[in-house]
């Protein structure tokens, strides 16, 4: 009984601050500090949100954003994990890539966006590129550090069993570093949500970020808040999905729970 109610209680406690913020929003809206045309009441916004969920056009924009987010995140995972494992697997690769990572990681990737637009165009590619550029570093760093920190005796056990160095890297060191890699991926997923939205706000003809900017330019304050709440709900769903995948992948690890 207790085991059943504990997650429920946690969820209830967790929802309190969110409800408080919405309540605060309601109070501010009612107080008249800001006119309703600029700061609509939460009720108005949520009603509009539900309406939009029934609109194919709106869902199409959301799907566009989600598609870019997934594409960017997926490329970042593949590139980040591959490079991170290669850095641990080969001293030469590590020596070659580490300085590059140190130089590029602190660069605000959004500064690269104009260059991406000029080279890749206004469509999906430049936005996906920006998501990759921002999401790849946490994954890369988590992978290279996680794989480097794997208990050597795990690798020794594999090598003694007859595994080649490469096979040991792929069948033992990579899975052993999975908890760390997935932590990097989780951070990268949140970053991807932020960056795809940002990219769409700067230059786009579709997507949730574009809807927000378009609404703001037209003083449609209700429509301005709807994409914002949508992306945060998407983030919530993605995180839940991520956790489900993580639990499956980490079956057997003490970190799974």
């Amino acid at each position: 009984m207790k085991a059943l109610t504990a997650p429920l209680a946690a969820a209830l406690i967790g929802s309190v601050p969110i409800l408080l913020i919405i309540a605060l929003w309601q109070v501010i809206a009612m107080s008249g500090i800001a006119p309703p045309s600029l700061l609509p009441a939460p009720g108005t916004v949520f009603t509009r949100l539900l309406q939009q969920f029934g609109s194919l056009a709106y869902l199409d924009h959301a799907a566009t954003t989600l598609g870019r987010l997934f594409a960017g995140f997926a490329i970042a995972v593949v590139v980040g994990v591959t490079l991170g494992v290669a850095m641990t697997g080969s001293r030469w690769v590590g020596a070659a890539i580490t300085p590059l990572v140190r130089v590029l990681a602190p660069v605000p990737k959004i500064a690269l966006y104009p260059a991406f637009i000029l080279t890749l165009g206004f469509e999906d590619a430049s936005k996906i590129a920006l998501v990759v550029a921002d999401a790849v570093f946490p994954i890369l760093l988590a992978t290279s550090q996680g794989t480097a920190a794997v208990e050597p005796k795990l690798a020794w056990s594999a090598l003694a069993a007859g595994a080649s160095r490469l096979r040991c890297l792929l069948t033992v060191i990579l899975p052993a570093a999975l908890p760390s890699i997935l932590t990097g991926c989780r951070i990268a997923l949140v970053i991807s949500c932020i960056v795809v939205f940002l990219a769409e706000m700067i230059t786009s003809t579709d997507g949730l970020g574009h809807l927000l900017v378009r609404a703001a330019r037209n003083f449609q304050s209700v429509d301005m808040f709807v994409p914002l709440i949508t992306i945060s709900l998407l983030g919530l769903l993605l995180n839940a999905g991520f956790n489900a995948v993580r639990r499956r992948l980490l079956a057997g690890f003490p970190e799974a729970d």
Partner: protein
Amino acid sequence: MIAIASVTKTFDSGKGRRHLALADISLDIAAGEFVSILGPSGCGKSTLLYIVGGFIPPSTGAVLVKGARVSGPSPDRGPVFQEFALFPWKTVLGNVMYGLERQGVRRAQATARARELIAMVHLGGYESFYPKELSGGMKQRVAIARTLAYGPSILLMDEPFGSLDAHTRTRLQNDLLEIWERDRKTVMFVTHSVEEAVFLSDRIVMMSRSPGRVKDVIAIDLPRPRSRADLLLDRRFQDYVVNIERLMEEPAPEPRR
């Protein structure tokens, strides 16, 4: 079988200081012999075992196994570690099958062989359990089965029962002797327990600390197969234990700096 010839090992302990862990160790181990390396913690006995395993290189000197110089791990030398070093993402069956797969054994055959080995270490029925669901003693049984799976002629055991409670330790010692008496593998067994060393070994190599060197080699002339109950009552067993414990308490020869 194993010839350790003038092996030394120095570690860089940072700031340009070097720490001599092993000083000029020479030792021969015959085929089918059960040899314990006994010494206080920090005497380099595990380091010596890792050098024989080919996991770390000696600073000078060499290890010859069956006349060939050790240059890396080989399935002929199977390690068993105190920390078990099981693959947490693999089930008991998956762990035991790892070595068989690396040896190119067909999947169906490997499964059958792994099940046999799991039954041999008294874990029948636990095939689909993850290591984290097992007790320490059970984990070490899995680790032993995983190592036996690829058929090494030499077992390198690094304080394998060091982290187990007294009761489990005794049971595993008995089981290990039973397995060893069946196929007489060459065993190099690192321990700091005098009783364990006397109970299991044909010969005990006593090591002293900083730097690690061979202090004494003692042949244990007790009948086999050995049973713990008989030995505990055996005067000769008691004498061995008492004498060796006395030897261990003697101060190490002048430490060289």
